[in-house]
């Protein structure tokens, strides 16, 4: 089970990012647990300065803006 954390205070882009992660996981047939992290302290402690940020299995792979679809699939399947 891959665990994915999406860091963001809950703006529209963060929501879209969560959907994109779910879509990518479904497309790859991966079982993915997506957690939304909205607390500013936790976001900051994760080292995310521009949201939305994405961490896959604890490793930060992306910060700032919507992720690229192809890249997202790459991170999930890595």
């Amino acid at each position, binding site marked *: 089970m891959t665990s994915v954390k999406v*860091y*963001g*205070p*809950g*703006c529209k*882009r*963060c929501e879209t990012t969560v959907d994109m992660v779910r879509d990518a996981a479904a497309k790859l047939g991966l079982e993915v647990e997506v957690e939304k992290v909205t607390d*500013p*302290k936790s*976001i*900051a*402690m*994760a*080292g*995310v*300065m*521009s*949201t939305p940020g994405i961490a896959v299995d604890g490793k*930060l*792979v*992306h*910060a*700032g*803006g*919507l*992720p*690229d679809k*192809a*890249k997202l699939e*790459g*991170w999930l399947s*890595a």
Partner: protein
Amino acid sequence: MSTDFTHPSPPLRPDWLWHLGVAGFVALWWMLYHQLAPLAEWITGLLPVARHSHTGEAIAFFLYDVPKVMMLLTLIVFVMGVVRSFFSPEKTRALLSGKREGVGNIFSAGLGILTPFCSCSAVPLFIGFVSAGVPLGVTFSFLIAAPMVNEVALVLLFGLVGWQVAATYLAFGLGIAIVAGFVIGKLHLEGWLQDWVRDIHSGASAPTQIEGETMTMIERYRAGTQAVREIFGKVWVWILLGIAMGALIHGYVPEDFMVKIMGAEAWWSVPAAVLMGIPMYTNAAGVIPIVEALLGKGAALGTVLAFMMSVIALSLPEMIILKQVLTYRLIAVFIGIVGSGILAVGVLFNLIF
């Protein structure tokens, strides 16, 4: 606007096609832009209204301004998107950490314009800066400059009111960000941050640093087109509404009416404009077309600029976001200092022009 750390994706189209496309777009843009005035007149001429009637004036105003603003925005937002792909928040933080106040404030205000970040990132960005040792005042210079001097505001001022006003706005916007940040730094208000921010500030647990990968030129072009799509999605309604309002004012409001309530003679007009601006939740896209029409009807430049700056830099929603990291006292100081700066700019302008 993205900073990715692994797996660069292959470009969808070959490089040369991208370069050609960008060059072709700019050429086409240039030709079309210079035909806008005759085009608007031509279309207005086709309509069953007298050209110099109230309605004719309003329609011609609308038909000229809408495509002009949309075209300017497309070009500038694209260019800014490409330029901003060189300035990630992470890089900016590295550039600013350890900068002394003074020079740091100037640097910081400039980077505030160039660094991409959406307003919902204000809190993590703030913490990221402060925890990396960027002085509080320098961080504030960044946070003030970023919304105040945005490209949408500059494009609209340039396109609708003229380059002189746009340049002045840029200069004074930067000036306020630099001075306000400097003053906040000098007051040493680190103790007025929220407790948990102060703990991070004292170095107890700094966020981990991540290294960005360099982007290819194609990825930067894509960042530009992405920026255009995003900004347009956000502002097109405001622009249409703003220009429609402006067109009505332009066509129908009598000259001396505005001079009386927004002219330079009314001493209270500047403070009133600043106060009115704070609770208003709109953006540059909606305000500036109205500003254009108001100026045309004799409103004083200083009053109008003060109103705009207040709407953009002192917005209530922004304060609510910042409440997560700042105490009320610090927010009050922030509003006081930035507000005084805007007030000074407004009064100064009305005296000079």
